[in-house]
């Protein structure tokens, strides 16, 4: 029963991530993975990234955003999230896990 419940929870968080984050990003054609790479490039640490995303989602502003100021000439600043802290943290962790590069890196011999 336990693996099934884990799988079920995983499915649930993925669908919530899709619904709460990716749907809107896809609609506005703002690639989520590219934004995550920007976070990686600037902060490196997962903990810091987690904190910075949470800060932005709780109180969105151009200063708190990872995007450059010119970005907001084209796109409006999003409204503050109405999700509670716990839900936000769960979704941020799922976002980081979804785009994390550790599982994607492969070592290949030089030709």
């Amino acid at each position, binding site marked *: 029963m336990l693996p099934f419940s884990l799988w079920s929870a995983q499915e649930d968080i993925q669908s919530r991530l899709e619904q709460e984050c990716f749907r809107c990003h896809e609609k506005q054609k703002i*690639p989520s993975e590219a934004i995550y790479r920007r976070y990686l490039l600037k902060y490196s640490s997962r903990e810091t990234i987690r904190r910075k995303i949470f800060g932005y989602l709780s109180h969105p502003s151009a200063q708190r955003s990872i995007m450059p100021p010119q970005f907001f000439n084209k796109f409006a600043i999003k409204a503050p999230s109405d999700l509670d802290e716990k839900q936000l943290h769960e979704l941020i962790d799922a976002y980081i896990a979804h785009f994390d590069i550790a599982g*994607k*890196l492969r*070592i290949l011999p030089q030709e």
Partner: protein
Amino acid sequence: MYRSEKRSLFRFLAIYLVSTLILFSAGSYIFYVFEKHHLLDLQRESVKHEGEKIQHQLIRLQSTFRPTLPIYLENGYDIALLDIDKKLIFSNFDLPKDFDFTQEYQLRSEYMIYNKPIDPYYLGAAYMIIRMTVDQSGIANLQKMILMFMLSGGVFFSVLGYFLGRMFVAPMRESIEMMNRFIQDTTHELNTPISTILTNLELMETLEKCDAKSEMQRIEIASKTLSRIYDDLTYLRLNQNYHREIRPLDLSRLLQERLLYFAVAIEAKRIRLMTQIDEEIIVEIDREDAIRLIDNLLSNAIKYNKTGGILEVKIDPIELSVKDSGVGIPQKELGTIFDRFKRANRSEGGFGIGLNIVYQIVQAYKYRISIDSEPNIGTEVTITWQK
């Protein structure tokens, strides 16, 4: 080889080889350290170059959005990527737990580990750690080369040291041989007059001769020979501390006195004495020096003269010359004839100190000495005191 010579040679060799070994070891060690550093520097350069290549790949992968992000690595290299909190992002080897992030290069057993900080943090990587297997063949070759150098150097310097040692102890060998020869000559030289005295005394007792003129003559010659040997040896021994009383001395008179002293020996050898002695030749010289000078010249001229030969003695205000008709001195010996214990001719007894004493006196008074000699014709020694 004498025992003392052998001991000196071994001591010299020991000091020489130990000091050479220390010098070579220190030199080789410094050379080894420098060369090893150079070899490692080359490997550092190559791992650094690999780091640059990987960083370029990370820059490219930063904007690559594919399910897999390949990093191409040369054979023999491993990589680890860490974030700013030094948490592992990715690695294909186990990073040592005590890894020091403050050092750029670290050597761990057979690996060289290169730490390259990255900024900005492509793919979140703040540190790129590259591990490379150190190529030990160059260092092993270096060690082999130094060992060969030390071995061949050791053989070369041992051989060289042996020959140098032989050269080093050669003067000692000469001194020992000279001393042996001197002792041999001394015993022989003393034995002849002592035996002469004893034999003649015995003869006188046995024959109970009242008029033992010839025996007495032989005893007189032998006694004078002993006395002269004693005087010469004492002069040599005291030469360093001898205090000279230099005063005007009538050399003509002294020469006549000394000729009288040798009269018996001259007569015994039936030598024809020819003198040309100017009266009152006054020279500033110590009396003992003058006696030793004249005695040695006359003694040599008598000793090396032929039986029935000629002895010419001349003195004038400029020089003194003594000429004999004896065995002469070979031309090649003339250059070293004044060396102590030098004996150009071994036909007669002697120490080889006579001409050395003459030469020392000549040197002390800044006189000039010349020897004109021809084998089997004779020798003429001339001392010139007038400048």
